């Protein structure tokens, strides 16, 4: 998988995530999606770039802002939307919801909604990969908010002591819900230097640049497959929307949002592809048309899917 990359496909994936999230927002307003809904809008380049480097035997572990990672991992867009609609055809048969997306066949291991709770789970998946002597690895996404949980330290230490094949991928979008990370973290907004404590190699990358993210991840993945133990990447990124659909964003100015929006990968990246002569504008347009249709059909699929049978309440409690 490494080396060769379909640069146009990276755009397709990012655009799919963007359009999917827009559709989610619309259907949330209509009341067809309920609960908490956290959109990945603005952060597409991080998830798509990082996950594009992985192979079939690798695991992807995500947080509650998980739609983008799921789509980048190839989780079926129809079943994903159906899950958000709470329908029987959803990835978890409507029992999980937006924050709990799983597709084990794809190695997509959730969707975890207790901040930082997914870190040791990811370490355990990596432990199994190591124990079984596979060449697989686990990538674990988390946000800056997760770094202030005690389990963050515990997991970094454990992974380093056991040299686990795990890539810790920090999506630093500068805010834990409505709290700027600068207000609640000693030592500023850079996390990667702190990894020296654990002797975990760490790099910073521009999370708005899908190719840069991909390159940094490729390097880290190669090291892990080479048996060098856990690696850490910090992508500086930004969500253009509120923490959830319930967020009025009173805690930050529109100027800051606009500043980041100038670096929107959905606009910047295709322009770059055109300039580099890698794509023609009609190719970009065609991708957009196709993806728009895919998302529209996903909404249609979800809307037309049945509600779960009430007998499902008692299924899947125990194996």
């Amino acid at each position, binding site marked *: 998988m490494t080396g060769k990359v379909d640069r146009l496909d990276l755009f397709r994936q990012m655009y799919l995530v963007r359009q999917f999230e827009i559709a989610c927002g619309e259907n949330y307003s209509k009341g067809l999606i309920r609960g908490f809904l956290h959109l990945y809008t603005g952060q597409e380049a991080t998830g798509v770039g990082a996950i594009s480097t992985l192979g079939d035997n690798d695991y992807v572990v995500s947080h509650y802002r998980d739609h983008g990672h799921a789509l980048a991992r190839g989780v079926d867009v129809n079943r994903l939307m159906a899950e958000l609609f709470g329908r029987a055809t959803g990835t*978890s048969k409507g029992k999980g919801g937006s924050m709990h997306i*799983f597709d084990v066949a794809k190695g997509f291991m*959730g969707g975890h909604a*207790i901040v930082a709770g997914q870190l040791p*789970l990811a*370490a355990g998946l990596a432990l*199994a*990969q190591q124990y079984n002597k596979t060449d697989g690895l686990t990538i674990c996404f988390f946000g800056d908010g997760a770094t202030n949980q005690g389990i963050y330290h515990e997991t970094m230490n*454990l992974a380093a002591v056991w040299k686990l094949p795990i890539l810790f991928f920090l999506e630093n979008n500068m805010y834990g819900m409505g709290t700027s990370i600068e207000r609640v973290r000693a030592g500023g907004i850079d996390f990667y230097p702190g990894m020296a404590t654990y002797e975990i190699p760490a790099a910073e990358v521009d999370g708005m640049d899908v190719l840069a993210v991909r390159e940094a991840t490729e390097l880290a993945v190669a090291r892990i497959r080479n048996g060098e133990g856990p690696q850490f990447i910090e992508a500086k990124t930004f969500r253009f929307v509120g923490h959830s659909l319930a967020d009025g964003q009173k805690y930050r100015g529109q100027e800051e949002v606009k500043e980041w929006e100038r670096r929107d990968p959905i606009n910047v990246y295709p322009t770059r592809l055109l300039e580099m002569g890698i794509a023609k504008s009609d190719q970009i347009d065609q991708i957009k048309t196709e993806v728009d249709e895919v998302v529209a059909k996903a909404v249609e699929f979800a809307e037309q899917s049945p509600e779960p049978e009430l007998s499902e309440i008692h299924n899947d409690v125990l194996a």
Partner: protein
Amino acid sequence: MPEITLRDALKRAIKEALESDPSVFMMGEDIGEYGGAYAVTDGLLKKFGPDRIKDTPISEQAFVGAGIGAAVAGLRPIVEFMSISFSLVAFDQIVNMAANLRYMSGGQISVPMVIRAPTGAGVQLGATHSQSFETWLAEVPGMKVVCPSNPYDALGLMRSAIKDNNPVFVAEPALLYGEKGEIPDDDYEIEIGKADVTREGSDITLVSYGYGMRPTNEAADKLTERGVSVEVIDLRSLSPFDIDSIVSSVQKTNRVVLIDNARRNGGVMAEVAADLQQCASEWLDGPVMRVGSVDVPWPYSRSLEQEVLMDADDVLVAVAEGYGL
């Protein structure tokens, strides 16, 4: 039949599993080089090596979580807490992850994992080291909880727990690790969710589990001396618990006392009592009586701790108050 301790019975089940199934491994604090705080794992590191007997840092959340992840990936970890009180530190992982994952994933995930912990008071460890949180965990759907009272049950329940495809919490009464009992040589297992009628009788039913079985049996002996025919039931499993066996017994004896070695309030016996009230009240000649330890933080002083712990006399008082026996 040879006699072994409860500690050795647990170790035998673990050792058998390590020998027969390469996906079984252990994690915990001081289980390897040190040999285990209660010596259950003593000698296993030497026999099975550090990949399968993994000493962990003092990071309960991380190693329980890592156990869950490994189980999700198809391994069968046995994770040890040094004390059930320390499980509180990792409750998020046990409840939000281990127990919920299967349901949240619509049945895509199973978590075949054993979590073991010594439980209970009685050796003057004070409030933070003497608790019995198997009662809290028994409420959580998506996992099972067992608590053996003797070496035979410890071996049979642990064998079943390791083979189970769900998270199983094994609460091990710390005061009973040295308790001896006879063990047959065959590879019997004990079904999780089934109680054991350990003594048959017709006048009154005493129900307990774990360490509570010791004062329960003492009380039963005294009642027998007085000519009372006592039926004793060992729950063995707290989740799911076997209400059917208790109801059957009550239909015969028409009298029941529920005995919990843990604090009385919110214990498993509260659930048993509620169920009995609902489905066996027409069979009962008196109130469903409950005995438990006093609802205070566990004190250190021996005299205070012994007073807080329920004992056989408390059981006899309940029998007398409830049924005049």
